[in-house]
């Protein structure tokens, strides 16, 4: 049983044509289900909780990265499979999962290629894609070694979907810690000689900042303060993916 949650920003007139096409295509493919369109008075977190309570097997969110981030905490401890129909800007997660924009995504849903993905967790907050930290954070990796950036203008990221060229995968039980130098230093690019970037494969790490608590940003939306324990949670989320996925 499917349920479809449309994010509130899709009320804008410019999306109505796409939404009509999507509804028709879902019906044609025989994967229609209860459709709920969010408004300023109806939030997607509550709608997701209610759908799970009703016993849906597949919850499809229609929207962008922010929509997924809002729904993620509601479905983590359920057996629900997550599906996506990307509409609107900021589609980093959909790109990585190989889901095309708009009505074409319905065909990906109907093909139903399932992958069980790892999630990252910072203290008690989950993330699907990445965690970004300022460069002055020290990372203690499993109590064995510490990683410190020597470039105050750089940045630090823990990625579940690592950039192309690194060995990591979002279902390998590991996260990639990536330290990128700031301006003036050469950025990390696969195959480039003496690039300044760093990559570590980790399962658990503690993020601390000597200057006091700083914000870690999860999936570009949620923040968690240091000190934070960041770890991978293996195969926590089942997702429908496309054949053009990045892993």
């Amino acid at each position, binding site marked *: 049983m499917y349920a479809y949650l449309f994010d509130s920003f899709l009320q804008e007139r410019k999306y109505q044509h796409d939404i009509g096409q999507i509804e028709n295509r879902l019906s044609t493919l025989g994967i229609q289900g209860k459709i709920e369109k969010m408004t300023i008075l109806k939030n997607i977190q509550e709608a997701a909780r209610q759908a799970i309570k009703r016993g849906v097997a597949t919850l499809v969110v229609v929207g962008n990265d922010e929509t997924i981030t809002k729904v993620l905490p509601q479905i983590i401890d359920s057996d629900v499979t997550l599906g996506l129909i990307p509409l609107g800007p900021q589609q980093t997660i959909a790109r990585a999962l190989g889901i095309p924009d708009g009505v074409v995504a319905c065909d990906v849903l109907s093909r139903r290629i399932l992958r069980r993905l790892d999630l990252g967790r910072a203290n008690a907050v989950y993330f699907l894609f990445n965690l970004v930290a300022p460069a002055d954070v020290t990372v203690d990796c499993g109590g064995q070694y510490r990683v410190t950036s020597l470039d105050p203008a750089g940045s630090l990221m823990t990625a579940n979907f690592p950039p192309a*060229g690194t060995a990591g995968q979002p279902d390998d039980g590991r996260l990639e810690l990536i330290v990128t130098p700031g301006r003036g230093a050469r950025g990390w690019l696969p195959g480039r000689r003496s690039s300044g970037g760093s*990559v570590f494969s980790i399962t658990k790490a503690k993020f601390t900042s000597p200057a006091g608590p700083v914000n870690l940003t999860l999936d570009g939306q949620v923040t968690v303060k240091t000190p934070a324990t960041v770890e991978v949670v293996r195969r926590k989320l089942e997702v429908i993916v496309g054949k053009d996925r990045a892993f």
Partner: protein
Amino acid sequence: MAMFQRDSGADVKDVETIIGATVKVEGNFVGTGDVVIEGHVAGTLKTSKNLRVGEQAVVKADVEAANVVVAGEIRGQVSCSGRVEILATGKIFGNVDTQTIAVAHGAILHGKVSMAGHETVEAKPGK
């Protein structure tokens, strides 16, 4: 054996760990994949695969790897189950335990070299 390419830095596609020039690592690093060091490492470093120490790298650690290419500096014991290659810019200040070794013209090696499978020959004083 997919050894690192000598002049192209490294074939980083399958490299598990890259320690860049702007990063310092302290402690006991243990990896299972290829490791490239361009920055600073202090403590110990162990991997079951290959290690490349870049030209600007400073490693103050005992290191253990399958194969080691040194273009920078290592201060510590080097243990290697395969081949150690010290390039012209490479420096090792410490003992080396390996199967085979290649030392380029201009490289610096201060330490005792032990090669597994080969008997140690004590130098006899001349008559």
